[in-house]
């Protein structure tokens, strides 16, 4: 049962990933990514973190991808869908990508060595759920980083607002 679920989720994620990359219409791309994200939320659920699954759904599906959709619709690209999907002279790129593929395959051959540490499934420490420990860590050990992320998000918001505001004021352009 566990395996079945995993296979389904993995297959769905890879499929929607491929779909996202190859689809001609950006709207479809975004929708495929949405599918990927939702499936991944489920995967996180199976990996023992309900909290992250929820965050994934809320932030990714709810915010980021909606943002993408907004942008796609803002930039009306109906006719763009008819154009070529891929960049023009990609033969050298392709070669390099091929090389990359080879390397990745080669890497996979190392996997057994890599994963040997993770054979034994250790129990979580006593005294609380994983979420409890996570929260404890987050607000104690990583508090500073947590705050930093907050600042980053704030800066991003300000930056985005600032960038788009300047454009509306054509008198300042060209300086």
């Amino acid at each position, binding site marked *: 049962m566990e395996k079945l679920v995993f296979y389904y989720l993995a297959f769905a994620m890879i499929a929607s990933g491929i779909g996202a990359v190859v689809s001609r219409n950006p709207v479809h791309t975004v929708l495929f990514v949405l599918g990927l994200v939702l499936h991944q939320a489920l995967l996180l659920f199976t990996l023992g973190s309900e909290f992250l699954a929820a965050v994934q759904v809320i932030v990714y599906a709810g915010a980021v991808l909606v943002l993408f959709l907004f942008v796609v619709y803002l930039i009306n690209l109906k006719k763009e869908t008819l154009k070529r999907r891929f960049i023009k002279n990609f033969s050298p790129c392709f070669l*390099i*990508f091929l090389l*990359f593929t080879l*390397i990745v395959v080669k890497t996979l051959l190392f996997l057994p060595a890599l994963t040997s540490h993770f054979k034994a499934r250790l129990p979580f420490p006593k005294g609380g759920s994983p979420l409890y420990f996570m929260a404890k860590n987050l607000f104690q050990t990583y508090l500073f980083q947590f705050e930093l992320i907050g600042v980053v998000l704030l800066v991003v918001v300000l930056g985005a607002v600032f960038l788009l505001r300047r454009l509306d004021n054509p008198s300042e352009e060209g300086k």
Partner: protein
Amino acid sequence: MGAEIKIIIAAIPILPLLASVITLILGRRFFKEASFVLPVLGILISFFFSLFVLSQVLHGKTFEFDLFAWIVSDSLKVGFGFLIDSLSIMMVCMVLSLSLLIHIYSIGYMEGDPGFYRFFAYISLFTFSMLALVMSNNLLQLYLGWEAVGLCSYLLIGFWYEKKSAADAAKKAFIVNRIGDFGFALGIFLLFSAVGGLYYHQVFDNLPLIQGKTISFLGIKWSLPFLISFLLFMGAMGKSAQVPLHVWLPDAMEGPTPVSALIHAATMVTAGVFMVARLHPLYLISPGALELVALTGTFTCFMAATIAPTQFDIKRVIAYSTLSQLGYMFMACGVGAFAAGMFHLFTHAYFKALLFLAAGSVIHAFHHAPDPNDIRIMGGLRKYMPYTFFTFLIGALALSGFPGFSGFFSKEGILISAYLSPYPWGKLVWLVGVFVAFLTSFYSFRLVFVVFFGEFRGGSIFHGEKPHESPLVMVIPLMLISVGAIFAGYLDIPGFLKSTLAHEPVHPHHGEHFFQNLLALIAGLSGILVAWWVYIKNPELKELFPRKFPGIYRFLYNKWWFDEVYHEVIVKPVLFLSRRLVVGFSDLFVIEGIVNGSARVVGGIAGAFRRVHTGIVNHYAVFTLIGIIIYLLVFFYLK
């Protein structure tokens, strides 16, 4: 030595300097036509001071003191100082008296010139520089005066700077002098390194140190005293216009005539002779240097005397005669008769200044002619300009060594000294001297006869009118100087200088060397006679020489081709070197080639790499990928 006399001595050069500086600064705005007042006043006072100092020196006193320390650094200590002995006070009095008269003369001569104030400022500055030169008690201050008179000469030759020829002549004078000064400076360095001081007394005290020493310089072994004397003499060659550095003096006639009289006849050009006389102990220990001085003087004397008769520019003729007379002075120095040389310097100053000023008076009358210096448009001026004529005649007689005039005494003195000198080249000097005496009187009377006798040939220029005598302000100085030109020879200058030059002057005792004296006298008189024969009696004869010997005539007329040779041998190669080799080849091609070439190589490499920056984001992603690949390869295979 009292403080008052020090102040008086110091004031002698400083007053003209002050007058000059004030006139230069305020002249254009405020003094204008009255610019001459201050310089004349300054020099007048200085002149009286110098007479006072002269009276002291006549009582056998000498003064030496430093005004202030100029350059002091370790072993090098030089001050601004004065050495007043018979030699320098003679020069001072001569310079100031002539300068004063020429200042006054210039009031008339330069009247109405837009650079009136400038002229007086410069000429006053010149007087200062010359005084600084002759009164100096060390070689460096001598050098200061040396260069400063050169500067004044430059400024005054180029006084009418709008004329290209004047500007060229000024530049030429300065640069040729610089070549001489190059040697002079090296001489000073060498002297310093040899005796460790630049004061005259230090030099003379330490002369035994350098006697007989040798030194290797530029890979050649030299006798040390000879090398020092030779290098210093190079400066004298430049300043006193001796071959091969004489080419600037004839061109210097582009300046106003009073300048030619004061600077290029009487004072500045004799600085070289003065210097040699001042350093005579040095020259006396180096017979080689004396020989060099004598031979240079002899050659210049002869060469200039052969050129002078072929020239038609009145000032150039006198300029070549100056060259020739300077040659005489060096001849005297070269045979060890420094006093005789100085004596000739003294008399020459008066009669040559007189000649120039009288010529200037003529030129003044002709000033609206296209070329006012050309003697071919003159003639018969005796009638129209009697004072000028008489003064010119006096000058010419003195120059020719006519008995009773100043030049006679000094020239005889030189010739006899040369004849009697212990040096082997004395006889040659004497022989050439006698021959040049003939040429001298020939060309000077050529001028007299062509300019003042015969028919007036300038009618077309004067539109039938006749030239006028110059104003009184010019004539009176002329007369005063002519007094000097006659009677300067009666002063016992050699005897006066005995205390300084420490060399027994040879007095031409009558009868003792009667034959030699007579020969020189005959040579002089026959020159006058020949000139009379050629230019008055048989005017057609003057075409004879050019027709018979066109080659020699052209050679002489073109001043022995010195200018042309220098142009081809020095000026052109230097310019070629600078334009083609240094700038064209080395700088712009080689060095810039290397610099810009390396820049271009870097640029080329960068150009190859810059194609990587396509501006397409995907490609950047690929490069990131390449990076990852390399990292992974390193990670897995090169661990």
